[in-house]
């Protein structure tokens, strides 16, 4: 199987799921019962047709034209860093409210700078992450009036 049809397969799957979900929607109690379904149903069908069209085109184009020079994205050097960034972001989201903005952001940036800038530059990394989180906290929370969660105990 050619790897170039994977995106169109995913879109086809999405189109099918979306269309099914549309048909399963409850009827509206006001107005025409099927009215909330018209627009989504059109979208679902359009996506199924377009993804089939894309698949047909990918199958027709000759092998090698697109895939010869391309390394699959998950084998590229940066991909593990992307996954790490997602992981750090998840942790960031989990601790954001509990640790407060300054502390959680400092940890998140420290971790990100570790990926980007390397551990040998830990001094710069620490200065940057501390300065950034404090600066943003002061600007947003104190000057712009945007609420950011406070870090317990130290009250900033």
């Amino acid at each position, binding site marked *: 199987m050619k790897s170039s049809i994977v995106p169109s397969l995913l879109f086809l799957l999405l189109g099918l799921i979306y269309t099914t979900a549309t048909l399963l929607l409850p009827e509206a109690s006001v107005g025409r019962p099927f009215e909330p379904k018209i627009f989504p149903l059109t979208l679902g069908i359009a996506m199924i047709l377009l993804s089939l069209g894309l698949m047909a085109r990918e199958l027709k184009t000759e092998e090698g034209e697109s895939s010869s020079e391309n390394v699959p994205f998950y084998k590229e050097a940066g991909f593990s860093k992307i996954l790490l960034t997602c992981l750090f972001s998840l942790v960031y989201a989990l601790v954001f409210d509990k640790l407060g903005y300054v502390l959680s952001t400092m940890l998140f940036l420290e971790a990100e700078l570790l990926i980007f800038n390397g551990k040998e530059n830990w001094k710069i990394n620490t200065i940057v992450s501390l300065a950034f989180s404090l600066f943003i906290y002061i600007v*947003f929370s104190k000057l712009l009036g945007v609420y950011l969660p406070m870090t317990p105990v130290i009250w900033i």
Partner: protein
Amino acid sequence: MDTLQFLFDGFLVALTPMNLMWVTLGGFLGTIIGMLPGLGPATGVAVLLPLTFSMGPTAALITMGGVYYGAMFGGSRASILINTPGDGAAVAATFDGYPMTLQGRAESALAISAIASFIGGIFATFCMVAIAIPVARFALKFGPAEYFMLFLFALSATASMTEGNRLRGFLATILGLMISTIGIDGQSGVVRFTFGVLELQSGIDFLIVIIAVYALGEVFKSFNNIHTGKTNVQKKFGKIWITREEWRKSVWPILRSAPLGFFVGALPGAGGTMASLMSYNNEKQLSKHPEEFGEGAIEGLAAPESANNAASVGAMIPMLTLGIPGSGTTAVMMGALLLLGLQPGPMLFQQQPLIIWGLIASMFIGNIILAVMNIPLAGLLVRVLSVPPKILYPIVLGLSFVGAYAISYSIMDFYLLIIFGLAGFLMSKAKIPSTPMILAVIVGNNMEQSFRRAYKISDGSLGIFVGSPICIILIALTVISIAYPVFKGIVDKKKKSSSPA
């Protein structure tokens, strides 16, 4: 005349010290973001959006306008000096700008790019003053059916203008529209596509999608091409100005490219990238020395810079007068307007003229401030280019999360940010363009609502969508926008096969 009176009032608003400060600050920060490889005006506005949350609508718009122009100026700095365009619109500036730097003519390149951008921007702002009110008046004639057809035309034009595969452009559009249908349906109260997640009932905020795709997605892409070594940026400059001879060469290309850029920018879906490339090719064809293009011809830098800035102003017209963003950046600005509780469109001109004209006046002022900032201070500003991206990208990540949080104070948005950021990265790997999706996410809800309203008015008959001359013209335009590229592709193929190279 009303227009002049409005414009005058607008200047009174834009020239208050606070607003002057905001446009300068926005321009400065925008320049820094625009200089980062891969990050352009759309990212700049998206990431700096939270700055404006506590401002009034006028100040917010003016600040974002400053960020917009700043990021464009910054993008061309990076194109000229280190050959890394911030976004598609700055690509044309590398063709001749970078060779000029290599030849030791960076001073002229920086100066002409600022001058050309300035002239292009000012020219386009004058055009905007002239046509904004007539367009808005005309748009008042639109009913829901006309609006629906207009959305349809704008989206299909955007999708079919995507470079490469148009099918992918349309798929991205549908995906964006699907995202916009998540949540409670405003007219019937039916909960759609939330899959039981309570937080999704109010829908997915398009600003989250925008920040995710334009900030997180772009940073993810940069992981693979971050330079490990230090980039050598020229930091010492002579006098940043151009010679009389260089001015003579560039003045006509600049003046020719400004109207072209404005016109292309105002079309839905075309935008700065197409405008700058078109003007570059134009000038190359008109030139007596086309062989100099690509080897450091100053007019090859001046023309796209002028067109690019003119296009960025032109793109504001459909956004402000019709509520239809024509480019990624105007989509972000429209998102911000909606967040402030303002619905862009003809009614905005009637109800809030000061906001609109304050913004238009600040375009004049912003262009002047940025030109002033960029010519004498260029040497200082490019020092930012020597701050390693390795440090700036994590900061962009940090700013994205603050921005996402400040929109609705919900951690749920962090998860959405990660999901859509990853999706944006995967889409780019599958060569699926993100801009059509972003536009669709923003207009999707209005599009469905106008469809439903028209459908109600006509009591369930679809005839209303072909019931007025405006509708029929829009349908014709939609068909042309889809058919023309297909037709052109076939003709090109025939030409190729009949005359083998």
